[in-house]
């Protein structure tokens, strides 16, 4: 990383080596039903009077779930009953929604700049146990992983998960599935500025004047 501020962060190595999050499928009816419900819901939320648009970002995800700590690993049959999910689950769900629309969607990770006051609050939020109500059969299984959250919060930098779409001409579109925004290649500064990005797209992607190859962190 070119930015000194990123390297100073104690979790720096963990961030850059962390693979993108994926949702577990139990290969059983429980997850099959849950995934079917999610995809049906996603299909309904695409209903628009302006149906000519091909690309419909799942901005409704943030109305369906609240952003906050959620334990990993997480399965389909668990997440559909939860109220609070972290950015990794948001990103994975957004990929499902985009893929169902026929787009090539891949995981993406980002390092973002925030001030220490902000990150202190998030650290406090993440210390609290997840608010998610757990169904009885899952409670015992979950005991061991309720605090298994990834240390995504640094002092002035945070780790975040996104979704990248592979568009025509190998152009990339980065979608922040947690907050429902598209990132643009224009240089950003200040609160929430993008410092670095990585994708898991198996092909080269172009974004502004940057080129992304699979798994490579790119300074911005």
């Amino acid at each position: 990383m070119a930015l000194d501020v990123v390297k100073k962060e104690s979790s720096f190595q963990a961030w850059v080596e962390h693979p993108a999050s994926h949702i577990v499928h139990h290969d059983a009816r429980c997850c099959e039903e849950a995934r079917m419900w999610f995809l049906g819901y996603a299909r309904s939320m695409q209903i628009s009077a302006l149906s000519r648009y091909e690309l419909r970002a799942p901005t409704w995800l943030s109305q369906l779930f609240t952003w906050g700590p959620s334990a990993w690993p997480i399965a389909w049959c668990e997440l559909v009953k939860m109220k609070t999910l972290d950015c990794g689950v948001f990103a994975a769900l957004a990929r499902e929604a985009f893929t169902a629309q026929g787009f090539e969607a891949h995981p993406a990770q980002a390092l973002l700049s925030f001030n220490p006051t902000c990150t202190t609050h998030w650290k406090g939020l993440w210390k609290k146990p997840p608010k998610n109500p757990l169904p009885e059969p899952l409670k015992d299984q979950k005991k061991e992983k309720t605090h298994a959250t990834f240390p995504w919060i640094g002092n002035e930098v945070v780790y975040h998960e996104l979704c990248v779409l592979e568009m025509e001409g190998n152009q990339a579109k980065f979608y922040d599935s947690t907050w429902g925004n598209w990132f643009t290649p224009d240089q950003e500064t200040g609160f929430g500025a993008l410092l670095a990005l990585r994708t898991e797209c198996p092909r080269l992607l172009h974004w502004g004047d940057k080129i992304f190859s699979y798994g490579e962190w790119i300074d911005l």
Partner: protein
Amino acid sequence: MKKKIYITGMHSGQNPSSGLGIARCLRRAFPDVTLVGVDHTHGSSGLHDSIINEELLLPQWSQIQDDEHAAFIRARLEEGHLWIAALDMEVYWLSKHFGTHPHLLAPNKEALEFTAKPAVKILENWPVSSSAAGEFAEFQVPDYISANLPDAEIHSFLRTHCWQCWLKSPYHDALRISSWSVFERARAYLKSNWKTSNLFLQRNVIGNEETISFAAHQGQLLGAVHLEKLQLTPEGKTWAGRVKPLDESMSQNLGQMVQQLGWTGGGELEFVRDPDGRKWIIECNPRFPAWIYGSALMGANLPGKLISHLWKLPLLEAIKPSATFTRVVYEIPTKDAVGLPRPKDPSTFTWATDGKHGKGGPSFSALLPNLEEQSTSEVVPLLPLPPANLAAEISSIALFFSEETPSRISLPLWTQQIFETLHQKVQTYCATGKPRIQIGYSVKTSPTDHHLQAAKNCGFYAECITQKEVQRALNFGFAPHQIILNGPGKFWPLTDNPITGVQLLFCDSLEEFSRVLKAKEQPKTLGLRIQLPQIHSRFGNTLSNYQDFEGLLSALQDLKRIKRQPGLAFHFHMPSWSIGLKRWIEALESFLYWCKGLEQLCDLPVHTIDLGGGYFPEDLEKLNLAALGERVHSQLPQVKTLYLEPGRSLTQESEILFTRILDIRKNKNTKANSSEARAESDTEVIKEIVVDACIAELPLAQAFPHRIFFQEAGRVPSEVARVPLGVAHVPQRKTFALAQPGKARILGRICMEDDILGQNISIPPDVQIGDLVIFGDAGGYERSMSYGFGRG
């Protein structure tokens, strides 16, 4: 003498004009230049800004003498001063009353014609970039129509665009239209506020707003920037944005456009970039935008470039590569020389901050000149005649009508034609199409004998929503296997032995489903009505959370366990006329997706799909049955029957309501100014009539436009023989006439403020008390929802 720059449009409120932004740009570029702020209202806040050297407060536009004002401006320009017009309507006023001048920085009349909204004709010649990556390849104009068209066409346009449109005036202001009543209110407001009839409706485009602002002098492009709006106010005004330089191809195209138009002054192309990246032009404004100082802060001072070019003043700047700005609100001391307007007495205000009259600041329309006379003369197209057979049947009945009024009369021939047309359409489809389509006539819409008979004759089933309706259908001769039972109150009135052994029964809740499974008699096919997420409805089984979905899966498992298992069906019902046909199709796709998923998860084939009714008559005609069948078959190949349940579309046109005129109210042209108009001022124009019907007989009078006919009473010439029913012959008599668009309205007989049965129509000048007014489209819900009122 030191030259000055006069800048108009100085108000800086929640909907700011551009004047203050232009002044700030010029002060930034040329600290010593003399800036004169001009406005026509005392409350113009920008005049108080310290960057303005002089303030020129003129009378309100309504008090301005056009020749006097034009001479005043000309005198300033002849002295070498510059005049920058920052208001659209002022630019139009200048083009009409002033013309051009080398020191007047505003586009000329021709440029205004070619950039007028909604068409923005100049963009038709916009070169298409050959580069796929070209940022601005082309612009498209969102669909639009004149708001002067007959109401039936406007209603159709709004339905087509799913009630997501804007009603716009030709200069300023745009109001969201989401229903017919909203449209009627908005049309009246805009006509009154902007004193123009030249309104138009344009479909909404979802996307991000962007604009191109530019400065030009006599066709030479001096500079341009591209703005992405990042934050908007609730009024849709820019609050923050990112300023970028224009790309090369866009810059070339803009340069050509400016050259073609001989543009002088500032300008702005506003567009929306949709999620697929296409650019939809919203409008081309003939002045700098109000956010223009944000651009100057980022190194692109367009007003500065204009003045630098004209006065040969040096201006050095460099645009930052990607620069953002935001607006803030802050307070400044007022200038004694300007002062503030005294607030009006508040005792008659509706709200304490009434913007037009009170302390909320001047309303935008009050700041602008009145261009009423400049508006192109209003051309109101004639309402197209209804289908010949329908007109013939109405006129033949009207000629000899002598009953008491109000009176609802059936059109048996037209009814037969509508039912048979649909029957034939279905038969044609069923010859080759899969799945089979079966029509279920919606009994609630109009349970009259002649409608039930027409349905029965065509082989339609009866769709009932109560036990009483089931009984009515059975008594009329429908067999149990020809009955569909639906709705939340299907077991009303409560009995120990409700009828459940019908062809098709849809449950509105899982609780009801559970009870039906225990009933003595099972329907041949049992189903659930589905309430789709995103489509707001009070009916059916919701799928909006996972727990509900699990409940539905569990209920379907219960169905599998019963001995004589009925076939499985799902029902989706959302009136296409209220959500729009496009959105209805989208919802259908989503519904089929759910059905397919449920079928797979439960391992229970879906035999039947019911798509409900709620089609507007002309929408049902447009419905492509083959495409509909193919959609269902491709997702659910095991579906054998697809049910449609039209009611309104079959019956709405099949009855008419006869009324008589009780009162005729006229207007004198008292505001006539011209000698010609004064000469005509004795002509009385009918502004409204009162008829003996009311909203009790026509409860949906304000929900959609009705065709209205006039028939003189008691003037049937003896030589006109009664026209046999069914003969396609419209008597060529002036006494029977279809009401055309106009400015009058028809009031109902009761003392209720909302008892208005017709608006924006013209009333024949020779109507008399007792003449007949016939409301078409008075069948369907107009009949079944009518009620007794005001009859003593």
